[in-house]
């Protein structure tokens, strides 16, 4: 399988969840484990380019597929993705637990719909729960990210 662009081969127990594989076997701890039954969205990653819940997939199912985690967004703190910059600048995270899922869901949204209305943002992120209840700032951050990505495309 390919993880964040890198070919990766591991032998895993069938019951190994994809999220635990990413965190424990590959040390990619950016993806968070929240509810562990597909409700909270903290474990959202891209699987062959589409968002999935990595807590309700088995790692063996990723054999031959491509997974992108939140680590794929930036090489380091000095080189943040426009979505990350927008979350930073707009107070789009408080405790940060839901953030990896929010970022990946936002990435999918903005790739499909570069200029979403507030209602469209709220629907796209409805499956990502923020227990700090910081939704107003998260929605602002996504709008700012859309603008930031548009500016990046222009330059």
């Amino acid at each position: 399988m390919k993880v964040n662009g890198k070919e990766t081969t591991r032998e895993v127990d069938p019951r190994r969840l994809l999220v635990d594989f990413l965190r424990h076997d590959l040390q990619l701890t950016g993806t968070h484990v929240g509810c562990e039954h597909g409700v909270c969205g903290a474990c959202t990653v891209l699987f062959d380019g589409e968002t999935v819940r990595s807590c309700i997939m088995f790692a063996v199912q990723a054999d031959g597929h491509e997974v992108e985690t939140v680590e794929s967004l930036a090489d380091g703190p000095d080189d943040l993705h426009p979505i990350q910059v927008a979350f930073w600048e707009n107070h789009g995270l408080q405790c940060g637990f839901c953030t990896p899922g929010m970022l990946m869901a936002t990435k999918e949204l903005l790739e499909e719909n570069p200029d979403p209305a507030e209602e469209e943002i709220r629907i796209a992120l409805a499956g990502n729960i923020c227990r700090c209840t910081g939704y107003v700032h998260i929605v602002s951050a996504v709008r700012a990210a859309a603008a930031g990505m548009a500016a990046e495309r222009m330059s």
Partner: protein
Amino acid sequence: MKPAPFEYHAPDTLADALDVLAQLGAEATPLAGGQSLAPLMNLRLARPLNIVDLNRIESLSSVRVEGDLLEVGALVRHSVMERSDDVYRAFPVGRVVAAFIGYPAIRHRGTVVGSIAHADPAAEWPCVALAFDAEITLARAGSTRTVPADGFFKTMLTTVREPDELITQVAFSTTFDSWGFHEFARRYGDFAVIAAAVAARVSDGIVTEARISLAGAGDRPMRLLGAEAVLTGRSLDGDSAVAVAQASVDLVEPLGDIHGSAGYRKDLVGVAVERAVVDAANRGG
């Protein structure tokens, strides 16, 4: 929590999958999208000894129009129903209904057939399967059978599928002249508290055949034959919607749970059916 240990089988062909099911029977559980099964395994409410992962069987990903039917293979995801223009042209209700299911990340993975196999009484596809006169194909090593949706759902999470059978496709009728759908859920993406689907054949403005089904109103998705009889012979309009809604309320005895009491659900049945019939009227036919 984490799932209990299991043996993992990942057949490449349908024949291989059916062989595994023939050997293991009730000790094997097919896995398609896993959006209900994996949570149940994580919570240890399900402890299958063997998982038969269907995701490598390419032939099951096919969705196509065949005569008067939209044939949806066992690996067709909700998001395909939502986004495919070919599906939309033949079966527009598919796009409307798919958007009610979970969230994008769930719809990318979860499957139409998986939802029907799981048979949650509050799920959307089983309800739509009843309204749209669906046929469900079950295969076992050496034979297949086709069961109408009307005879498929037995009770909560239970269908007529035998342990060595695999549901390979559901085929929805594309021949209805008009249709409507309405769902009440607590929040966007939740299972229905009550949902209603209506499919009708209309001739010269008069309904000649109607099928009306509900999700969330009992231990299984159900048709409302008495309400269908009320709609048949009338025009598709607001007055008919009110008459059909009243008949519907009298036909159901919903169960109450944390998402809605029995009485509340009974009230919602009337409103959902009325709005679904109005939806059908607005779509013409």
